[in-house]
């Protein structure tokens, strides 16, 4: 069994799969796909993943893409129990809803903000939409320690990657405004494998974002940059 993960660590969905692989203690090879160089658009990559996104997982002779599909596949195939992706239909439905919230709301908003920043080079970012998302995540966590209930699941891995990147750059999670979300972020970032699987990549992406940040975020930028340098909160 040879697992190969194609991607780049600045990408949030790639990091979600890295968190899952580490949580399952699986051996894998990492194949760097340089998006800025257009590696993902080359025929060899497109033949594996016609949607030409990252991450893509190779398991033996099969190729799977979409981080959420990959994470579900890995747990169902390799985990010793179903804790990370419960088999019971109702519990699973909650995890699935959180995963689709990530792909439909969180991910799309984050991508739209990145597009404005990197492609359209705007000087003001509409981060209200991100805050709307934070507000919903705050509600999902009401009465629970994890995104989909009382135990860690792939929903936590999926959501933490883009939230941590936004937290380190344009929209820090204010603990007074979002106490549940802030506590959850600290909780997830304390996992033993978090540093390697998510932290490094999130910080790299955050630096790229902050390098483009409009002047209005100067103070925010300063604080966030200091947080990064000091490694504050392990985030």
């Amino acid at each position, binding site marked *: 069994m040879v697992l190969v993960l194609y991607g780049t660590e600045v990408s949030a969905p790639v990091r979600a799969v890295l968190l899952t692989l580490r949580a399952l203690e699986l051996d894998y090879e990492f194949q760097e796909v340089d998006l800025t160089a257009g590696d993902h658009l080359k025929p060899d990559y497109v033949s594996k993943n016609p949607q030409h996104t990252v991450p893509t997982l190779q398991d033996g002779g099969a190729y799977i893409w979409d981080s959420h599909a990959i994470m579900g596949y890995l747990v169902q195939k390799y985990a010793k129990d179903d804790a990370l992706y419960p088999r019971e*239909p109702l519990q699973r439905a909650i995890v699935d809803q959180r995963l689709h919230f990530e792909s*439909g709301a969180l991910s799309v908003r984050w*991508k739209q903000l990145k597009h404005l920043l990197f492609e359209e080079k705007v000087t003001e970012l509409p981060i209200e939409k991100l805050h709307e998302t934070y507000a919903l995540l705050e509600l999902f966590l009401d009465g629970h320690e994890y995104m989909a209930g009382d135990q860690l699941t792939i929903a936590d891995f999926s959501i933490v990657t883009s939230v941590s990147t936004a937290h380190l750059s344009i929209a820090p999670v204010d603990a007074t405004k979002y106490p549940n979300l802030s506590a959850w972020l600290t909780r997830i970032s304390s996992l033993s494998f978090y540093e390697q699987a998510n932290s490094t990549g999130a910080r790299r992406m955050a630096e790229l974002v902050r390098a483009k940040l409009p002047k209005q975020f100067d103070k925010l930028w300063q604080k966030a940059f200091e947080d990064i340098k000091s490694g504050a909160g392990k985030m």
Partner: protein
Amino acid sequence: MGKITLYGVDASPPVRACKLTLAALGLPYDYVVVNLMGKENLSEAYLKKNPQHTVPMLEDDGACIWDSHAIICYLVSKYAKDDSLYPKDLLKRAVVDQRLHFESGVMFANALRSITAPIFMHGSKMVPKERIQAIIEVYDFLETFLKDHDYIAGDHLTIADFSVVSAVTSLPVFLEIDAAKYVKLTAWIKRLEKLPYYSENSVGVQQFFGLIKSLGVTVEA
């Protein structure tokens, strides 16, 4: 089996994905129309069940589930006689899951909702050109996914077909599907139209088209 209640409106594509699935499974259910224009989804009662205040929402014997994809996966897992609509084989399932997330992100959020949110929430009457590009991207990818297969996730009908068809048949009100360019996509839609319960989608599509047209929305040339 407890009582199943589906909350939604026919015009909504994800509600139609649930209706198609319920019909495919032959499951009886109560249908409660949610008055979205009247902000019924923001009522205390609704928010208690679904803090994200979206439709569709499913109640099954007291338990509340939302997000159409989570709902349809749940329904097959709990009630189907076999796994054909949502294969247990992990590789086949991964393809269905990828298509479902493609529908969530690329189709519903990025293509459809990015257009309808300004229309329904801010009274916008003009669809900007960039949003049309997002629709073309959808049609292009679906044509690719269907290249070697009769159904969206492989050689058999799955819930991915229900999810994707509900959204893709709603997009033509903004950009028609060019049958000469999208041969596979057009053939696949026609294939699904033959399903005996397809009216669970087509009726709502007409309502959605009617709604958009009645608002006088045009596309930037």
